[in-house]
């Protein structure tokens, strides 16, 4: 599955929002803030903030990257929130079905036997909030980068492919007895 479609949906963002004379004459750039954008700690802080505030869950970043590929064959859930504007790319949350159900339980206050529409909705929203919190940590990004509505993929045998990202941050986090993976991929930088 390619992510270009998700990214394309938000690529018009900067054109729509940078219309004043002042904005046109002061085209914002991220080149000076790249250390902030690519700082792995920004993703960690964003994940912790969203999990603690919305789910009441403490999650820990795992030092070794335990890839979910090891669980290939088991049902998994992947949420993708694209961003576009001064920076284009995507924020991706991937977890096993059991982790998705647990996240949804904490969020909605009810139990789920399967990955239904409410669980998919919850995972999409969590990914959306992490993406928003992450970009909010860089002022230029916060003001000049828009988010797409979340897309959620479920299944047991699929891979996400991103064509030659400019940079990628991929972390695994654990909470309770399970874990999930967060990835930020960026391929277009102004």
């Amino acid at each position: 599955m390619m992510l270009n479609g998700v990214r394309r949906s938000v690529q018009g963002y900067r054109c729509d929002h940078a219309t004043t004379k002042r904005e046109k004459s002061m085209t914002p750039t991220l080149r000076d803030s790249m250390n902030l954008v690519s700082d792995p700690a920004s993703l960690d802080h964003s994940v912790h903030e969203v999990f603690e505030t919305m789910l009441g869950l403490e999650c820990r970043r795992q030092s070794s990257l335990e890839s979910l590929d090891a669980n290939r064959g088991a049902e998994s859930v992947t949420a993708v929130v694209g961003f576009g504007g001064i920076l284009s790319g995507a924020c991706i949350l991937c977890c096993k079905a059991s982790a998705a159900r647990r996240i949804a339980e904490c969020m909605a206050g009810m139990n789920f036997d399967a990955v239904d529409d409410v669980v998919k909705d919850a995972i999409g929203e969590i990914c959306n909030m992490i993406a928003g919190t992450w970009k909010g940590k860089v002022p230029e990004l916060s003001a000049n980068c828009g988010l797409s509505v979340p897309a959620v993929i479920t299944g047991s045998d699929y891979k996400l492919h991103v064509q030659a990202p400019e940079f990628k941050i991929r972390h695994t986090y654990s909470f309770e007895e399970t874990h999930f993976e967060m990835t930020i991929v960026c391929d277009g930088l102004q």
Partner: protein
Amino acid sequence: MSEVRALIVDDSSVMRKIVERSLRQAGLDALVVFEAGSGVEALEVLKSRKVDLILSDINMPSMDGLEFVRQLSSQQLAVGVPIVMITTESSEEHVKQAIMAGAKGYIRKPFTADQVKQRVLSLLSAA
């Protein structure tokens, strides 16, 4: 506090439930909630229902929250009703756009029930 009729606009049904739960935790026991999954749906609701408070997401399909608030003004719907935007977008520019569109408050996701309580109660007491 007497009965409060609130319209919650968000494309996520889970987020609508969380916002409703936060309102109830704010002490709004006599709460009547209407829900809409987009700005278009919300405008339809407001054509037949009177509300005291509107809480709306910004980033939604069909019609986003900012356009929804602008449409309220142009269609003379929910005049004088306080509108709170609840969204992941948190830049000063987004806040400015929301205020210019007609919003009276702004809450950034992720939020706590206490943040919703403070913002909503202050707006309702001022209304």
